[in-house]
């Protein structure tokens, strides 16, 4: 059984803070298939399209039949550990600080032998469940997990280094008025978050949730307006040094296409949804990036909630879709900029949410609770791209298949 993770001790400000280092990050192009699968939480390996054999490590030709048609497909996760080691010596700066480190060989039911990280609860002879996760370098890696969930298994040090688990961490949720905020708070507290800061713009006009949220234990409501640079800077000066996870729920939605609408709404949407993200990243990002190796409550993730129409516009929400595409693009740049620190940028893509601004749309719509659940799951599993709700999942699949066909379908007039 994993040892229960103890809350961090009070920090001694005279001691040097551990600086962020990364595990080895060089990979071949083929191996990036593991990264792509890990980013969305699927277990995919290369399958030969001609002979059907499953191959690992990633390669450019099948070693059973020399076909070059290798396709990444979801694969059976079961395997058996056939050997294990505990590494005590490594020349790599990242691992040197984390020794000893356990790794092992797992014979997959699908065929290949895989060299992988070992969860503390598994050893030679055990049947395991394999998972693909992103490591601190943002690359997909394999870890062998217990076949059945064990208590506190997420506390295992090697597994925790591959996730953004909220346990003992301090979280900033940027907008108290977002419908999912209350459910997010509940989910994060249940997952073990130690403190939650909730941003509130225009504090003079308090919403109906204010009193209930402000009264919660381990939760504090603080002024934050993502459209106001000085407000963002002020809050960052106050809590930036203890923000381990930032969840940006602030967003502005107005229906309407591009032709008929006034640009005032579009400006407001870009101001909050795109530039607001930039302001938050500029104010909180560098501080978080410097604290990614800072013990149990190290900074770990920056979460962005986006409409799935960031991928392909919904003409009924033209300007809003544009702001979401802009925010997605900004998040990709931020991801690249955070890469050297290991700070994870998580995008949670959602279908239309069940709120007043999506009122005319038919179901299915995403209830606030479901969105909150996806965010917490994304953190606990350490994903990079999360698709929440049937609409988002369906749209993602169609987008992967053919973006042009999807565009035409969204424009209406399909059979």
């Amino acid at each position: 059984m994993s040892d229960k993770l103890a809350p961090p001790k009070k920090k001694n400000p005279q001691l040097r803070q551990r600086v962020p280092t990364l595990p080895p990050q060089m990979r071949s192009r083929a191996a990036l298939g593991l990264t792509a699968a890990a980013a969305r939480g699927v277990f995919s390996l290369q399958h030969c399209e001609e002979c059907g054999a499953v191959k690992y490590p990633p390669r450019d030709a099948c070693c059973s039949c020399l076909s070059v048609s290798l396709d990444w497909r979801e694969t059976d996760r079961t395997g058996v550990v056939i050997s294990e080691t505990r590494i005590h010596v490594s020349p790599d700066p990242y691992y040197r600080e984390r020794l000893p480190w356990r790794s092992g060989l797992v014979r997959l039911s699908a065929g290949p032998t895989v060299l992988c990280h070992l969860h503390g609860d598994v050893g030679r002879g055990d049947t395991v469940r394999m998972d693909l996760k992103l490591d601190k370098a943002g690359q997909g890696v394999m870890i062998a997990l217990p076949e059945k969930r064990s208590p506190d298994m997420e506390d295992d040090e090697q597994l925790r280094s591959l996730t953004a688990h909220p346990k003992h961490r301090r979280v900033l949720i940027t907008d108290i008025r977002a419908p999912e905020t209350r459910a997010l708070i509940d989910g994060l507290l249940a997952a073990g978050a130690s403190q939650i800061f909730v941003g509130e713009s225009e504090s003079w006009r308090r919403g109906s949730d204010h009193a209930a949220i402000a009264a919660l234990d381990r939760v504090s409501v603080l002024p934050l307006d993502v459209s106001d640079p000085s407000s963002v800077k002020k809050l960052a000066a106050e809590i930036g040094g203890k923000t381990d996870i930032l969840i940006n729920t602030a967003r502005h939605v107005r229906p309407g296409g591009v032709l008929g609408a006034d640009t005032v709404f579009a400006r407001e949407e870009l101001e909050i949804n795109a530039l607001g993200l930039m302001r938050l990243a500029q104010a909180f990002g560098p501080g978080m990036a410097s604290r990614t190796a800072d013990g149990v409550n190290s900074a770990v993730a920056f979460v962005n909630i986006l409409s799935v129409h960031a991928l392909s516009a919904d003409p009924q929400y033209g300007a809003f879709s544009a702001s979401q595409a802009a925010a997605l693009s900004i998040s990709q740049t931020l991801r690249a900029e955070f890469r050297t620190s290991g700070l994870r940028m998580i995008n949670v893509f959602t279908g239309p949410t069940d709120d007043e601004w999506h009122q005319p749309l038919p179901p299915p719509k995403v209830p606030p609770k479901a969105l909150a659940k996806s965010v917490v799951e994304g953190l606990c599993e350490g994903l990079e791209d999360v698709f929440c709700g049937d609409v988002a999942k369906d749209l993602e699949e169609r987008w992967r298949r053919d973006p042009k066909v999807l565009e035409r379908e969204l424009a209406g007039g399909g059979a």
Partner: protein
Amino acid sequence: MKRQNYDGVVLTAPVSVPYVRYSQETAHWWIARALKQVLDTAGMAPRELDGFSVSSFTLFPDTPVGLTQHLGLSPRWLDSIPMGGASGVVALRRAARAVQAGDVDVVACIAGDANRIDSFRQLLSSFSRFAMDASYPYGSGGPNASFALIADSYMAEYGVTREDFGRIAVAQRSNALHYPNAIMKSPLTLEQYLAARPISEPFGLFDCVMPCAGAEGFLVMREDEAQRRGLSYARISATIERHNAFPEDPVQLRGGWVMDIDELYEMAGCGPDAIDLVQTYDDYPVISMMQFEDLGFCAKGEGARFVREHDLTIAGDFPHNTSGGQLSAGQAGAAGGYLGLVEAIRQVTGQAGPTQVTDAETALVSGFGMINYDRGLCSSAAILKGAR
């Protein structure tokens, strides 16, 4: 088709350039030192040499082509053997056939590598594509971790203990105390072996080699040429080579020798009983034990018992890695794939000095190299006979 023998071709001028733990010198420098010594031994000028075979991990950005200009050679036959621990025997196989066919008169086979501060880490992180993608990111233990995984399976499968591996390491240290060029100079007891700090379990410190800088070399030429130059030489009775054997084995509990060993003894016209001394590739004692089995000295799974029942020192009944092997002499990159071969040439030609095995006539040398992902891919072996 029956393989042709190596009649008329010999190995001579064995040279070891003393190893250094860390050195500012480049691979070019180390290779130049070994080349100079083999040519001096044969009384040849560099421009006279018409064949050159090189093994090195640290020549970058050069290849052996660049070395010809760097060292002033004009060979008509040039080879590069990037096979790590299998390089020595493979270089000799290639060179011997070229000499036999008359494509070349004399081949200098040289392996040498630099070892600067931090160069080992850089070598590990980009050793191979599979290592970069699928082994190094998992704790970055390098070959220690990869072979520890093999050792863990091997111990579980055949009931082998660390003590069994320790006997190999301890005997080699005792041999190294007689070898003037060995990096390790102090005696090692089984207790010290067992109590050593862990490196990558089940391995402790004395299961692992010390990376260092150094070079090894020898010449391949026609027998009449060696006689004309007054050189003592070894004949090649048989050789084998294999790559990526048994890819379906989930974990490496046997090497490629198993596929070819019958042919080796058949070509040599002798069996394991006729071997006076053995030089295995000892990146780890477990790999030497595996070779005792796979080279036919005992049955599979009997390696531990074999080690318990034999004395592996120079004066023992099964002289093994008489220069101390890489475990005690040090691992100078690709030169580690030459160490046993060069020592075997010295032994069967009676030039081994303080490590000389009495009446050594027939030696078996085996090579093993290149842990591309989860296992060593190259295996090789040769049987040499002295001609005195």
